[in-house]
């Protein structure tokens, strides 16, 4: 996966593998707080720690009814924008095809992303021969992408207990046999496999966020 600034009006992903497209398609599910009260509390916060002096019930109730409800719409809308953009994932044209087609449009992929795609034997044994996909995102959708990724990371962290304080609960350590997954707590609410999967999603989404901040979102700030 590569992130590129395409021009003044867009940015995007290129060299997306099948799995990486799936990773992006998983943003919606990852950002869903359903069934996780801890995530719900993290996303939809209270404005006061302790209810003030005890006479803030009405203020807190209004905050829930109006402010948090508006956030609910805002955050859902961001995820919907991401989901709609993902419809535009296209398969990258192979270089030789692009060179041969004679239409002068070497950057255009012609095949839509196929969710049922199965790699051929050659593609399976030689990942380099697998197809890649790309996706162009309008600059105007950047905040929605960042917000959806952020929400996904917050929910993943809460649902799968990915952090203990500032420390990560799951890590990778290098051993003589190679990299090994290390779980640093005894949380059993989710399977280790699911937690590891959530950990890597969290890392990947964070990587995209870092790129967006440095290459797109900081524009105009002096």
């Amino acid at each position, binding site marked *: 996966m590569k992130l590129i600034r395409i021009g003044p009006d867009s940015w995007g992903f290129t060299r997306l593998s099948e799995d990486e497209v799936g990773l992006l398609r998983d943003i919606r599910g990852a950002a869903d707080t359903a069934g996780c009260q801890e995530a719900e509390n*993290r*996303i939809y*916060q*209270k*404005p*006061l*720690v302790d209810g*003030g*002096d005890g006479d803030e019930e009405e203020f807190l109730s209004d905050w829930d009814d109006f*402010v948090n409800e508006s*956030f609910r719409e*805002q955050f859902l809308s961001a995820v919907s924008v991401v989901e709609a953009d993902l419809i535009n994932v296209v398969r990258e044209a192979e270089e030789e095809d692009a060179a041969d087609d004679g239409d002068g449009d070497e950057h255009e992929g012609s095949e839509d992303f196929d969710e049922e795609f199965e790699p051929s034997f050659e593609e399976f044994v030689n990942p380099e021969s697998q197809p890649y996909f790309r996706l162009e995102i309008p600059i105007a959708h950047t905040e929605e992408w*960042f*917000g959806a990724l*952020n*929400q996904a*990371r*917050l929910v993943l*962290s809460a649902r799968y207990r*990915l*952090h203990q*304080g*500032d*420390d*990560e609960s799951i890590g990778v350590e290098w051993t003589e046999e190679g990299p090994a997954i290390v779980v640093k707590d005894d949380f059993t609410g989710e399977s280790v496999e699911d937690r590891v999967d959530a950990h890597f999603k*969290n890392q990947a989404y*964070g990587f995209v*966020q*870092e790129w967006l*901040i*440095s290459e797109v*979102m*900081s524009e105009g*700030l002096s």
Partner: protein
Amino acid sequence: MNRTPSAAIETLPEVETETDEALDLPWNVLVLNDPVNLMSYVTLILRRLFGYSEEKAAKLMLEVHQVGRSVVWTGAREQAEFYVQQLQSHQLLSIMEKVDES
């Protein structure tokens, strides 16, 4: 018959009034540490929302990260509510609290 000025002045009984000093106390807007939001993002939002320089925003962000919380703005309650709403809309952990005058 002329009345002297002093006779025209009635002395009203002194009435004790309660002023709600709490309304006048300033409120702090705080950002709290969380392990998910990127440090660069916290800095960016502080710059955007409050117009802080990169140096000031980065200093506040580091305070959040190292101390666990940072007062990023102090002022009238209504404005504090607005800022907390803005910070929460960007999914930063944020609260407001009355300034402790003690």
